[in-house]
């Protein structure tokens, strides 16, 4: 420990800490903008400057280490003015359209300007005038709102390792864009939406379907059907100023009915169904029919990533559709038949924690009888806005249950939303399908938690099965390169595109004023909300779900049957967006 002084008071700090880290621990929150603890230090915004006695200039506290006897001032009149000027200069060429901006009320720049006490504007600068890039199915890029903090560039390259974004040009003309300024949809962007999560403004935002959905909810000729992903219930409360970790499953169901949905189904039901298909597929492969390791296929950003960067591993990926697409396929077939309705009259809406699902919904491979199976995807953020906008009191509403036949789920379906959850759910079922015995110790700790790559082993009927779990496309990259070099190493691998799995999805509520995007504590609490739901269920294994059993009896026959293959399975093919580095060259 070393001695430092902050605002004339003596404190102890750890050698090697930056001034900001030391100050954070000591209860001084130095204002900041481009800094993010999970990303490399950029030092671009200069908002976090402090005065260090003996230094000629103010230093960026995010980048400057503490030293013995250092005297730091964080809040003098002069430093306050300098910081305010810096933020004012950032605002200077930022559009002044807060009240019509999608992030009005939860914008970090807005909060920062408020905290700086900017009440009068001294500078009137030139504004930027760029076209918005509306080409992507999921993510809108608006350079006019960009303040060049670079968090998106860093999360895309450092955490996701997709490298879709970079800075182009220089000075006032600097713009964050994909290579060659190509349309987002043609770029290597996987549509994961993590750039939206870390953007302090609305330079990145999801493609918004709320108006279209409101309009369709008012259309009396349609049968409106919703499904809700596990992670939405685990996080939507945060958009209503609740502390992370409170699940609102029943309230959400009630709110969706109040919004005008005729049927509210649970994506967790189709998660159980995914497990039936996927566990069966794994056992087939394990017994020699098909390639190992088998890799999961629920995450749509990961699927786009696979087709672009790892086409050589396509045969390793499960053919199962994602739970969303399975539910949508059933809504427009099995369910339509059940209620004697024309599937063309059904509006199938998915409420997802994910921006990539908007892209997935448009994949031509997922069409059912010539129809798009999922008509509209809204993120947790969009749904929260709709609920507020419609004047529904989500927090005090009386909870309701999901509808049958696609609404009942086991605990295994619930934990799909957390990294490791699909694997855990699959093991619970695969074990029993293979051995005929029930797996008693069903909480598999090795693959829980937020470690980037988790490995485990289990023995089924005397045979060892080696498993691995990765979340975030950067970790996935590591595990996939391992598989390329050593294909025998694992039997079964789960990959989720976002940090933490779906709970950290690109469509989840923005961080509040006291938290950061991708905060681990927040992710842990969301995970715990889902694990809690699982623990409290009597049925915790997918194959024991009575509605799943009925579905097989009445409609599908058995897992991997011809009907299953038609409705619940899909295929992938190599894709080469412009300027991509071919897969064979990315192995180092």
């Amino acid at each position: 420990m070393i001695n430092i002084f902050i605002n004339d008071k003596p404190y102890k700090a750890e050698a090697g800490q930056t001034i900001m880290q030391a100050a954070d621990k000591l209860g001084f929150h130095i204002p900041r903008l481009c800094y993010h603890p999970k990303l490399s230090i950029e030092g671009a915004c200069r908002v976090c400057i402090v005065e260090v006695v003996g230094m000629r200039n103010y230093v960026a506290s995010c980048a400057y280490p503490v030293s013995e006897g250092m005297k730091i001032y964080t809040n003098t009149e002069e430093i306050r003015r300098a910081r305010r000027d810096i933020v004012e200069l950032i605002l200077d060429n930022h559009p002044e359209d807060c009240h019509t901006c999608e992030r009005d009320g939860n914008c970090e720049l807005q909060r920062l300007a408020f905290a700086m006490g900017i009440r009068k504007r001294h500078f009137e600068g030139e504004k930027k005038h760029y076209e918005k890039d509306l080409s992507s199915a999921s993510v809108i890029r608006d350079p006019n709102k960009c303040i060049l903090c670079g968090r998106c560039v860093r999360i895309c390259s450092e955490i996701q390792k997709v490298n879709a974004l970079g800075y182009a040009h220089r000075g006032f003309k600097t713009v964050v864009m994909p290579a060659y300024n190509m349309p987002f949809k043609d770029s290597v962007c996987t549509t994961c939406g993590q750039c939206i999560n870390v953007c302090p403004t609305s330079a990145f935002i999801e493609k918004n379907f709320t108006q279209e959905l409101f309009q369709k909810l008012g259309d009396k000729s349609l049968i409106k059907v919703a499904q809700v992903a596990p992670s939405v219930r685990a996080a939507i409360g945060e958009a209503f100023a609740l502390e992370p970790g409170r699940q609102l499953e029943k309230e959400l169901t009630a709110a969706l009915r109040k919004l005008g949905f005729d049927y509210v189904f649970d994506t967790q039901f189709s998660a159980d169904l995914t497990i039936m298909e996927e566990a069966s597929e794994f056992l087939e492969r394990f017994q020699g029919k098909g390639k190992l390791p088998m890799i999961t296929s629920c995450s749509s950003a990961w699927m786009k990533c696979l087709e672009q960067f790892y086409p050589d591993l396509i045969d390793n990926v499960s053919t199962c559709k994602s739970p969303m697409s399975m539910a949508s396929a059933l809504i427009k077939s099995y369910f339509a038949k059940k209620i004697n309705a024309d599937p063309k009259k059904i509006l199938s809406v998915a409420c997802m924690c994910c921006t990539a699902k908007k892209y997935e919904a448009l994949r031509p491979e997922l069409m059912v009888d010539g129809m798009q199976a999922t008509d509209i995807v809204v993120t947790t953020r969009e749904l929260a806005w709709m609920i507020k906008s419609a004047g529904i009191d989500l927090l005090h509403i009386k909870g309701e249950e999901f509808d049958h036949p696609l609404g009942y789920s086991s605990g295994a379906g619930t934990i799909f939303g957390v990294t490791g959850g699909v694997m855990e759910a699959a093991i619970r079922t695969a074990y029993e399908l293979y051995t005929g015995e029930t797996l008693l110790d069903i909480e598999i700790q090795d693959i829980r938690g937020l470690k980037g790559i988790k490995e485990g082993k289990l023995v089924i009927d005397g045979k060892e099965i080696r498993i691995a779990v990765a979340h975030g496309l950067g970790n996935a990259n590591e595990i996939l390169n391992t598989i390329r070099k050593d294909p025998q190493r694992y039997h079964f691998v789960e990959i989720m595109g976002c940090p933490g799995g779906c709970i950290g999805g690109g469509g989840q509520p923005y961080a509040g004023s006291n938290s950061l995007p991708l905060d681990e504590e927040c992710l842990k609490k969301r995970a715990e909300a889902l694990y809690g739901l699982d623990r409290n269920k009597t049925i915790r294994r997918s194959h024991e779900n009575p509605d799943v059993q009925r579905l097989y009896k009445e409609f599908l026959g058995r897992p991997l049957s011809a009907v299953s293959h038609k409705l619940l399975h899909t295929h992938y093919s190599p894709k080469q967006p412009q300027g991509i580095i071919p897969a064979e060259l990315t192995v180092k």
Partner: protein
Amino acid sequence: MTATDDKKTNELKVFMREAKTKDHPDSQLISILHKAQELYGYLSQDAMSQVAKEMNIPTAHIWGVATFYHYFNLKPKGKHSISVCLGTACYVKGAEEILNAIREDLKIDFGQTSVDNLFTLQEARCLGACGLAPVIMIDDKIYGSLTPKKALEIIKSYKK
């Protein structure tokens, strides 16, 4: 692709293979882009993608470097480059009139290339020939003491 293009592609590849043997191959990017521009006259998307593949550097990053430095051309250049000096001495002596005459004659602005691919127009900040102001430079030849009329006559002589 023509035989000469094949030869250029190959030369760039050899250059990059050499760069990869150095200590920090990633830091060779700028010299590689210089080489590509020397070979092709500008940095095409194909050339940049070729660099991305060989060097395993993301294209978004290469694009960032290529757009950051003014030296790199992202569009093919004309056969001749015309630099109009807008330094103080030339400016005072009427560089703007000369510039306007050229703009009008060739129907191009700074950074653009004429339709016949003969001329690319560039801005210069003092060519060190203030005694001859106003001056323009065509390729590496300086023309001084110009009037708009004289400038256009000189340009005309390059059109043959």
